[in-house]
């Protein structure tokens, strides 16, 4: 510990880089992918308009991936999320158009529906003992059927509700004295930066109070400036167009909540423990079945939310909704560094993973790359990420 104190700034940065190589590679990969598409599209990819668009498109994948990350950490899988999202989106459309339920009550009902689906699949896994792969594969069949059944008589349902459609197409309102730039977005950016610096400072103080080693002042300042710059650049880009999309707000809130639960609470500890060694977790007094059940309820509830976002994005419910969503969610988690053997993973990194996946989709669409090639490219990036992950992660005896 004392050695670290005497390190030069350069040495400290190198050490930092070495210990976090896995995370940094992911950020670098994202930047490289974004730079590549910006170059190929003459800046079209990085334009304020397209970035806003990208966020609106990526929202439902990010939400699905957050739920999937927890499922993968505890060494299960959920193959049904795609059609659960599709089915829940269809139910939302039906409630609003055929039963005249208002959009907010609709969303609540659909989320409860998602939770019940999760309860059903989680019960199969934890109480009946059906492997998650099988239980959710069966779910994939069933919810696909339910989706097409529910739209059988009407075909695609157009959703007229403005509030609902704003979720994935709208932006937060601006202050009344609007300028060219979206002022509220910039203000939120500043608030986020201040909040981040405040919480980081507090954590640092707290550590110093306990006499723990903290990074040197120089490194801390570099880190803070870098993070602040990233936040402000993104916020400025968004302010230059129409401001923060509602999707970003929703994803942000879900991400914040899940990150808090996983990193700060007992439940989060239990999730990692179960993924690391479920038998040891059981003997440590953790109710493995209950935590597993919660994870399934959470993933299906988030799938329902993703269904709402997707339906809102298309402003309609279609029988094709949900096709292949689970693949994007699983790929996002793994690209985001969830260990294939379970027990390791972070939802914040999963978001980066889903940005990688959605940047690929969006960028290749802009470039006019055919869908067949898109799948192949995504597959290659996916396998490179996982292979790199396995090679860099030191095996534990």
């Amino acid at each position, binding site marked *: 510990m004392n050695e670290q104190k005497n390190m030069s700034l350069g040495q400290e940065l190198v050490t930092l880089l070495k210990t976090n190589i896995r995370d940094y590679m992911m950020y670098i990969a994202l930047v490289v992918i974004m730079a590549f598409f910006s170059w190929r599209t003459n800046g079209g990819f990085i334009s304020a308009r397209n970035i806003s668009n990208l966020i609106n498109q990526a929202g439902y994948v990010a939400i699905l991936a957050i739920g999937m990350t927890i499922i993968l950490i505890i060494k299960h899988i959920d193959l049904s999320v795609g059609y659960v999202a599709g089915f829940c989106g269809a139910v939302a459309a039906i409630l609003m158009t055929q039963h005249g339920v208002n959009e907010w009550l609709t969303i609540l009902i659909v989320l409860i529906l998602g939770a019940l689906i999760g309860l059903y699949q989680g019960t199969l896994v934890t109480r009946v003992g059906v492997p998650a792969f099988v239980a959710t594969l069966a779910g994939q069949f069933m919810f696909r059927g339910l989706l097409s059944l529910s739209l059988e008589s009407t075909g695609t349902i157009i959703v007229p509700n403005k509030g609902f459609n704003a979720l994935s197409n709208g932006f937060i309102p601006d202050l009344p004295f609007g300028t060219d730039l979206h002022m509220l977005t910039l203000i939120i950016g500043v608030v986020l930066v201040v909040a981040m610096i405040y919480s980081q400072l507090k954590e640092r103080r707290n550590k110093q109070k306990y006499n723990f080693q903290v990074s040197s002042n120089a490194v801390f300042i570099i880190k803070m400036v870098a993070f602040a710059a990233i936040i402000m650049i993104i916020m400025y880009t968004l302010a230059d167009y129409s401001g923060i999309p509602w999707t970003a707000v929703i994803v942000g809130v879900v991400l914040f909540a899940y990150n808090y639960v996983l990193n700060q609470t007992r439940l989060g*500890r239990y999730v990692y423990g179960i993924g690391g060694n479920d*038998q040891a977790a059981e003997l440590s007094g953790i109710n493995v079945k209950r935590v597993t059940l919660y994870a399934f309820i959470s993933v299906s509830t988030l799938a329902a939310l993703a269904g709402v976002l997707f339906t809102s994005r298309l402003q309609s419910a279609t029988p094709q909704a949900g096709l292949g969503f689970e693949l994007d969610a699983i790929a996002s988690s793994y690209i985001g560094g969830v260990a294939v053997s379970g*027990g390791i993973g972070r939802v914040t990194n999963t978001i980066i993973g889903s940005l990688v996946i959605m940047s690929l989709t969006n960028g290749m669409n802009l470039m006019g790359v055919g869908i067949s090639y898109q799948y192949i490219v995504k597959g290659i990036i996916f396998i490179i990420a996982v292979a790199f992950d396995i090679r860099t992660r030191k095996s534990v005896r």
Partner: protein
Amino acid sequence: MSDYILEMRNIVKEFPGVRALDNVNFRVQRGEIHCLVGENGAGKSTLMKVLSGVYPHGTYEGDIVYNGEVMNFKSIADSEAKEIAIIYQELALIPELSLYENIYYGHEIVKGHKIDWNETIVRAKEMLDKVRLNADPSMKVKELGVGNQQLVEIAKALSKNVKLLILDEPTAALNEDDSQNLLQLIRELKESGVTCIMISHKLREITAIADTITVLRDGATICSIDCHEYEVTEAEIIKHMVGREMDNIYPPRAEHEFGDIAFELKDWTVVDPAKDGREILHHVNINVRKGEIVGLQGLMGAGRTELALSVFGNTAGYKITSGEMYMDGKQVHFKSARSAIDGGLAYVSEDRKGNGLILIQDIKYNITIANLQALMSGTSVNKNEEIMQANYYKDSINIKAPSVEQLVGNLSGGNQQKVQVAKWMFVKPNVLILDEPTRGIDVGAKFEIYTLMNRLVEEGMSIIMISSELPEVLGMSDRLYVMSEGTITGELTAEEATEERVMAMAIKGGAQDE
């Protein structure tokens, strides 16, 4: 005059941040039994992995000279081609396959492109005869006990025509009888010309069987002792291993009075639905007083671990058909590990890697996981407090690691065991069940665990110690129960207990059954 089958010269093996082997020299004579001893982390297993090609040529420095030639093993297959076989502590058999399939797994007997199963069965039977295992080659491995599985492993090695056999703690999981059998078999193999390297912590076995003993400490060769020159004592080996004299293997315990009965089982009968509803525990009556260490001795399969698991929240899903459990005189019903923990009971698993620790997590995580409620501030876990607590236990019981952020999977067996104990100390239970607390850990670490046990009972805790090692049970227990075939066959005070009496009780039930 000496004919060396193997010479390892100036072997250096480095891992990030650690020099595991530092210029080790190791020579084995043809046809001898060579015991390799040393504390955990001394480098024994690493040395054997270098030899067998697990760490391929190029990842270490130095030379391996085998039969006079320098070897550059790239993989285990390379070393096996030279008739070197290694049998690990964790057996590498496939439980669902038959004995003959296992014995020839990886080097099947083929005729044309097809496996010749008839020939395989005949030859497997020969190999089983050689290891004196009287079993049907077509039975499944999982139907055998650990001791016999060990024999199957050796049969497998023999089927490869092995000339140099490496055994990594072969008797660690075996009871006294099986151990004696195995040692006898190793002697017979020696007669038939097989050279054996045996890693072991059981010094009594080593002094009984070894021709040469090499001691490693901190990644360096300390000495090689020729056992034919003079009578080697356990004390001498220990001295070389730890670098100091150890007068007493069992630390003395301060005289203290026992309190009231802290834990009691009455008429405890348990059925295992997974084993066709067989009764695995019959009318067990035991008790422990406050401040007492009670030993629970018995052969492998006597039902000791099953007893512990059925008591500790019954996580294995047994059916408890009769009986009552009391903590401090009050009847309790533990329906989960959590309720047992909350009720003041803790269980240190015999299988620290399998169900005791979470290897991919760090020391602080493992120490605190069973008692996170003690670290809560609001809804979140206080991570600074967590580090403080973990550091306290790390220093207090001397867990050797650079920091509490070290992954548990990277610790030596003894230190892993200490993490397990620290985890339950942090829970502060009234009654602690220790299941094989010193399995596979070295003399120095054993002494530390014993000292820790003394400290805990002096503070008023009650300990039930399950162990297969007779000397340990006799050395540490204030009182002991002997179990056989799920029945308590005897109760002895420390004064009454002798190895002979305990063994007689331990095999008593076994004779009647089946």
